[in-house]
């Protein structure tokens, strides 16, 4: 796919998000694109910051192992905000992503509604293309 230089992948540590990272890393490899994995730090992350960071790190390391990519080569950004807002911000400088990638459902799962679905809200609001990676 032409013109895709930077990909931002939303990551909350869930299995769906792992699938998104898996897809995104492979896509980036095939298209010689940069990858930024983005974890939104919400209000409640404050109560268990260490646990959240460890879980996110471990989950990301697991995906990197699966793809055969060194964890150290994947840039992880932890950004204050809710998941949708944080991903929308990735389309702006300094990241200036050309493509956003998210899993079908994150940790806030409630099927059948636009509300509660980061992926659907993102698709509705994003000014740049969004890939929603289906659960495998």
């Amino acid at each position, binding site marked *: 796919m032409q013109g895709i230089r930077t990909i931002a992948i939303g990551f909350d540590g869930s299995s769906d998000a792992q699938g998104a990272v898996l897809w995104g890393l492979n896509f980036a490899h095939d298209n010689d694109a940069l990858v930024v994995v983005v974890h*939104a730090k919400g*209000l409640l992350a*404050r109560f268990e910051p260490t646990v959240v960071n460890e879980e996110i790190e471990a989950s990301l390391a697991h995906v990197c192992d699966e793809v055969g990519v060194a964890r150290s080569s994947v840039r992880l950004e932890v950004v204050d*905000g*809710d998941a949708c*807002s944080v991903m929308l911000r990735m389309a702006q400088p300094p990241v200036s992503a050309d493509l956003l990638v998210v899993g079908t459902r*994150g940790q*806030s799962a*409630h099927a059948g509604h636009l509300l*509660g679905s980061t992926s659907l809200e993102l698709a509705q609001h994003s000014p740049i293309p969004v890939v929603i990676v289906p659960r495998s």
Partner: protein
Amino acid sequence: MLIINGHLDDAGHEDVGHPERPERLRAVLRGINELHLDGDLLAVAPYSASRAELARVHDATYLDELGAYCYEGGGDLDADTYATYDSWSIAQFAAGAGLAVIKELQIRDDGVGFVAVRPPGHHASRDRAMGFCLLNNIAVAAAELTSQGERVLIVDWDVHHGNGTQSIFWDDPNVMYVSTHQWPFYPGSGAPYEIGGLDALGTTVNLPVPAGATGDVVRQALLDTATPAIEEFAPTWVLVSAGFDAHRSDPMADLALSNGDFAELAILTASFAPRPGRLALFLEGGYELGALQSSVTSSLGALLGADFASERPTHGGPGSDAVANAKEARFAALRIARDTGL
């Protein structure tokens, strides 16, 4: 005279273990009781905001979705925000409470309003719930006032930036939004160069302060940067997003304010109101129950002319440089926007 909303049965909006919980409102009411106002306290009847009143600041599809989501049992709206079966009804009453308090202030042309409701509202945007917020209570009230031809100043001293309120009024020249908040921090918005849309340049005033900032730094930001803009704006009403999570005991943030600081902030904010009966505070955050209670007491007491602060105003924290830099960044953004139209 303190005018508050009548009893809101908010017990149904709860997610066990979540910090935004019914006990918060009980603490607030204890804080009001500490004032021993007797005949100087008026509780206005509960009122549920109408669809038309909500639709001034929220998209119709969002209102439909949120109502349906709740009636189907609710759930997590994002990693922070929940809704229950009862949340839709409770949120409508929370939004209506502000309208009822304002109406009473208009009738009396005197007094101070306090809208003691939950869930809070200032993170809710036109079409999204987030940050514990479902409906933007203060925005609903401000929109009602502007529909009557008023010019509304919203001062938001919650520790988090009110991204929802800012976005709703971004292009509205009749609403000035002024926020002091910890930075960098959730929700990530609130930079000093965010100054309003082309139709309302300068009517958004963001005053970020760093972790550890004390009350003097917050007041300095309001006095140095916001006050000239507010005087130029000349509000006819002042509404306050009164979160008390900037208190040094609050577990949700890292600012270092005392309940004495909230008393001083209340007095400073009241000075922006053109006359009595034109000031109303809306509860936003505040999650440490003791700090919440004492800060409600101190700030409302100060507005009624009494000193109920049990802690002295704080001084000496970091942030003076940040305040000065933010002021420069704001002015630079204003210059660029006016010169280029961007």
